[in-house]
Every structure is written in structure tokens, then in C-alpha cells.
């Protein structure tokens, strides 16, 4: 098992790709969804991963839990490399790693009742008997602020979206996980419900000592919940670091562009027009050579097309993958 000071989750050089069938004769291709991603999640920490559509962040989440398995790379969770395990051993090793998904209705079986849904992990791992499972389910529903007497017998279609997500969270907590991956877990909610669910995550973090891998496209949400943030673009990490520093003084041009595009609820703020980036994200089927952001980067030069910039440590806890990062002292 991992040492107490080692990372809870250590992902190294993770690669995930999919083949795309050509459309009736036209050429197929390979979607390079995740191309060599490495990071750590420390015990008790929340790591946020931010990226837009096509960044590969959801694919990354699935690859970590081996559903489906990544092409290559290692995923060491509590000392065991999930990518090398099979069958029963994988189930055991993965027990303390759980996931909450984006669409609350889609993540629950519509023909099951809440009680059955929340106890599924207990049944699968043969924990306890009927009576003890029932009381554990009641405990879990209480944790997510759903009254067990009112909710146990209901089906997902009788619940609101926010309630469904709470059920999903209760299910994720059943086996007392160490790390929960939240894959856009609040993105499908309106502002007020979103705030409720975010607060729930925060409360559980404090009460149960959870770690999170929080994936989202919204920088502000990620900052709200994370100790460190990683920015992802087209399958690779651009920048990693504590959100305060990163947002005030971004090192990667993409981070800067993201920050500039966010509307703020303040009408007196000047719109930072000159910093919105041009163009569309390229397709992950045929990503640009070298640095994948170079086609939209105002600072790109020849070197960017030839060499893939590695993610390297600069200034303490910050990492950046850029040949010409935004701060002088950070450049090689």
C-alpha cells in the first residue's frame, strides 16, 4: 500500500485513443483524446481539471477508472496500478474510487428504486446483510440530506435532477471511498441547484475527509472547490497549480484566453475583447503537431510546431507546458 505521504492517485503518461470508422468510404481516423497526461492527487486534496469540449477531460476520467481501459500509461491508486489489474483484483483495488456523472437521470437505472440504487455497491461487494444494508442506506441518504422515509421507495423519474444527483452521490459514498471523481457533476443544473450540490460536496469533504478529482468546464466552479487546478487542452495538460496564483498570473496562453472569455456578473468590468482567442478548437482526430494550442496561440513560433512542450515544474507548485510561457522567469 502507498505510504502516508505518497499521492493517493498517481497518473503517469496516460493515453486514450479511439478509432473512428470512416463514413461510407471516407477516411477514418484515430481520436487522440488523451495524449500523455500525468498528475497526482494528494490525500485530502481536491484537484480540479478544467477544459472545454474536446479537451478529453471526461475521457480522462473514464480511463482512470478503467471503463474502458486506457491505451497505455499507469494509474496508481493507493499503491496499486489499476491499469494492470483484472477481474476481482481490479474490483477490490477500485473499491475506494468512485465517480459521479454529469447527467443525474442517466446515471441511475430508471427501473430501480432509490434504496436499491444506493445499496448496489454494498450488494456487489457483499457487505453486510439485508438489515445492515438498509440502515447504511438510511445513513447515506441522511448524509446527502434526503429523508430516507420519503425517498427510499421512489424511482428516479419521480425525483428532480438535484435529488437524483444526491442519490448518485449517496451511492458513491456507500463504500466509504477515499477519492471521488466528479465528472461535470454540477454542469447540468441551474445556478441555485448547482450551488446546493457544490455545497454538499464541500460539506462531505470536510465531514468524511474525501479527496476529489473535480472535472468541469467552468473555471469559477473549479476554483471554488479545488486546492489545485489543471488546465487541459486537446488531450494534454497546459498548466497546473494553485488556482489563486494561476488565475491572477496565468503562465499558459490558453489559460489566459479562458480567463478572458469568462463573463463576470459585473457590468462595470471592461470586456477584455482583445484577449479573446480566435478560431475554433481543432479536431482531436488530427491534432496539430508539437504544441496543440499553437494554431490559436498569439505567441506561437516555429519551435512550437516541431517540439511538444513538456509539462515542467516552475516556481514551487506550478507546472506549465509551453515553450514561451507568459512570465519571463518561467521560460527555460
Amino acid at each position, binding site marked *: 500500500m502507498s505510504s502516508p505521504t505518497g499521492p493517493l492517485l498517481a497518473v503517469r503518461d496516460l493515453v486514450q485513443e479511439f478509432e473512428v470508422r470512416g463514413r461510407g468510404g471516407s477516411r477514418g481516423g484515430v481520436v487522440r483524446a488523451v495524449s500523455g497526461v500525468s498528475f497526482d492527487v494528494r490525500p485530502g486534496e481536491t484537484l480540479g481539471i478544467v477544459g*472545454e*469540449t474536446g479537451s478529453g477531460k471526461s475521457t480522462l476520467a*473514464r480511463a482512470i*477508472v478503467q*471503463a474502458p481501459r486506457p491505451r497505455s500509461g499507469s494509474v496508481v491508486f493507493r499503491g496499486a496500478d489499476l491499469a494492470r489489474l483484472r477481474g476481482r483484483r481490479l*474490483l477490490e483495488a*477500485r*473499491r475506494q474510487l*468512485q*465517480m459521479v*456523472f*454529469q*447527467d443525474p*437521470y*442517466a*446515471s*441511475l*437505472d*430508471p*427501473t*430501480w428504486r432509490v434504496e436499491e440504487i444506493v445499496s*448496489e*455497491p454494498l*450488494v*456487489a*461487494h457483499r457487505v453486510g446483510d439485508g438489515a445492515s444494508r438498509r440502515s447504511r442506506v438510511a445513513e447515506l441518504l441522511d448524509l446527502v440530506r434526503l429523508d430516507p422515509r420519503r425517498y427510499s421507495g421512489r424511482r428516479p*423519474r419521480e425525483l*428532480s*435532477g*438535484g435529488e437524483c444527483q444526491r442519490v*448518485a452521490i449517496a*451511492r458513491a459514498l*456507500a463504500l466509504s471511498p477515499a477519492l471521488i471523481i466528479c465528472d461535470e457533476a454540477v*454542469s*447540468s*443544473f*441551474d445556478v441555485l*441547484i448547482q450551488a446546493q450540490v457544490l455545497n454538499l460536496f464541500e460539506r462531505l469533504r470536510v465531514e468524511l475527509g474525501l479527496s476529489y478529482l473535480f472535472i468541469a*468546464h*467552468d473555471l469559477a466552479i473549479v476554483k471554488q472547490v479545488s486546492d489545485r487546478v489543471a488546465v487541459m487542452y486537446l488531450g494534454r495538460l497546459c498548466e497546473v497549480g494553485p488556482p489563486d496564483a494561476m488565475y491572477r498570473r496565468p503562465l499558459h496562453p490558453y489559460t489566459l484566453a479562458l480567463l478572458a472569455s469568462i463573463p463576470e456578473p459585473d457590468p462595470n468590468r471592461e470586456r477584455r475583447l482583445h484577449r479573446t482567442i480566435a478560431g475554433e478548437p481543432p479536431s482531436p482526430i488530427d491534432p496539430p503537431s508539437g504544441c496543440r494550442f499553437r494554431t490559436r496561440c498569439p505567441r506561437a513560433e516555429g519551435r512550437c510546431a516541431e517540439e511538444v512542450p513538456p509539462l515542467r515544474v516552475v516556481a514551487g507548485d506550478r507546472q506549465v507546458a509551453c515553450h514561451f510561457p507568459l512570465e519571463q522567469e518561467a521560460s527555460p
Partner: protein
Amino acid sequence: MANVPTDERLPLGLEALAGAPAPARTGRWAGHLDVGVPAAAIVLLFAACFVWPTLLPLAKPVGGNIFEANLGPLSPGHLLGTDTVGNDVLSRLLYGGRTSLETALAVNLIGLFLGGTIGALAAYLGGAVDAVAMRGLDVLIAFPALVLALAIADSLGPGQGHTILALSFFAVPVFARNARAATLRLRELTFMTAARLCGTRTWRMLLRHIAPNILPQLLTFGLLSMGAIMVIEGALSFLGLGIALPDPSWGNMIFQGQQSISATPLLVLFPSAFLFVAVLAFNLLGDALRARWNVR
């Protein structure tokens, strides 16, 4: 996908509104006529064919008196008359209905459970299992249903058991196809991934997650194919291969009757009418349920 808020309680998406069937009148049961009427008709048919003969005094369907042949309807003792050898038409209609309905039901149940299981397993397990199962079934599906049933019935000979077997060769692959498609769609849904992450084993996934979710689809498909099976059985019997005379089925009654159709058209009309009503009722019920469960 970036921020896509879902309505907490009702999807007020206009697509959903446009698709909802407007009830003819407001009122609780008027909105259920689409299911109620055909369901009632089916219940009546079953009651008539299975219950009535045991309760009411009815002439026997076989072994009629030749001297009472070709009586018209409303003759004493024979409500709908007799056929060319003196059997009571009403009795033959009801017992024949029993046979036809039983056969179709049996075939459908075999198709649903055997075919459904094969299809779901093939889709869920994928790989070699899927390839082998599907190629095998493809061969069977490639034959037109009637031809296949004919060929098998011919080699087996007439009789209800053989008929059921022959028709099952047609039904199982079709249900399997259906179940496979449904399972493939289901397999990629988020709650399936979530269940696997919980640690749920394969057999439990199939039994508790896949089966309940594909059942409505298979059920409505089953209802819709009741009609088809009954017609094919009728055709087989009509051709002399299905249910052997003198045991009645709607199909062989039509076969018998067509021999003297100009003289006694009612002998063809009655069984045809019953067959028509039965097929129509099953189709309407199947359609209505499909519309309801899909909209949900």
C-alpha cells in the same frame, strides 16, 4: 457539453410537448381508450375461447352428425350453423380460437425468453459470442418467415406441437435481433457504467439492469407480432400443414371453408372475421403501448 440546465421537474422542451398525443376529450379514462379498447377486446376473445366452452353447453367441435350438415345460422342447437360435415360452427370457432391463440402465445413466449436472452447476451458480451450468435440467426432471418415455417412444418408434419416448433424458428431470431439492438443501446448508457463501477457482476447486470429495461420494448414487439404469428399459423393450417383437421383452428377452418365458398361463404367469413379482430386488437394494443412507453 457546456452548461445545459435541465428543468428540475418537467422537461418543457417543446419537442416533448409536440409529441404528446392530445386526448380526444379531457377526463381520466378517455385518455386511456387507446389501450383500453384493444385490451378489452383481447380479454373478451380469450374469455370466449378459453372460458366459455367449459361453462356453457356447446356442441362438440368434432364428430358432428353428417345429417346436420350445412345448417344456416340460428338453427336450433347451432347458433352459427354447421359446416359441411355437421360440426357446430360456433364451437369450432371457439375451440379453434383457443388453439390459434395458444399457439401464437406459446411461440411468442418462446421467442421472448429464448430469443430475448440470446440477443441480450450476444450484445452484452460482444466479441466472438456476438459474432457467432448473430451469424447463425442471420441465416434464419434471411428466409422469408412463411417459407421457413413451411419447410420445417413440412419435415415435421402437422400438429400443434410441431407448428409451435416451426414458428419458433421464425420468432426466436427476430426477437433476438430486437433484444440485441436494445441491449447495445443500453450498454453505453451512463447508469450501466455506474453499475459496473459499483462492482456489479455480469450476470447481475444482465438480470437486474438489462432485462427490466429491454422488457417493455420486447413486450410491445411481442404484441405486435402476435398478429403476424397468428396469420402465419393460419396460412400453415390453410395449406394443410399446421393444425391437422378435424381439430379446428381459424386457419384450417378457412381452408375447409374455401372449398365450398360459393355455397356457404359464412364458413370462411366467420373464422376470417375472428382472426381479423384478434390481429387488429393485438396490433392496436402493441401500438398504443409503444407510443406510451416511448414518450415516457
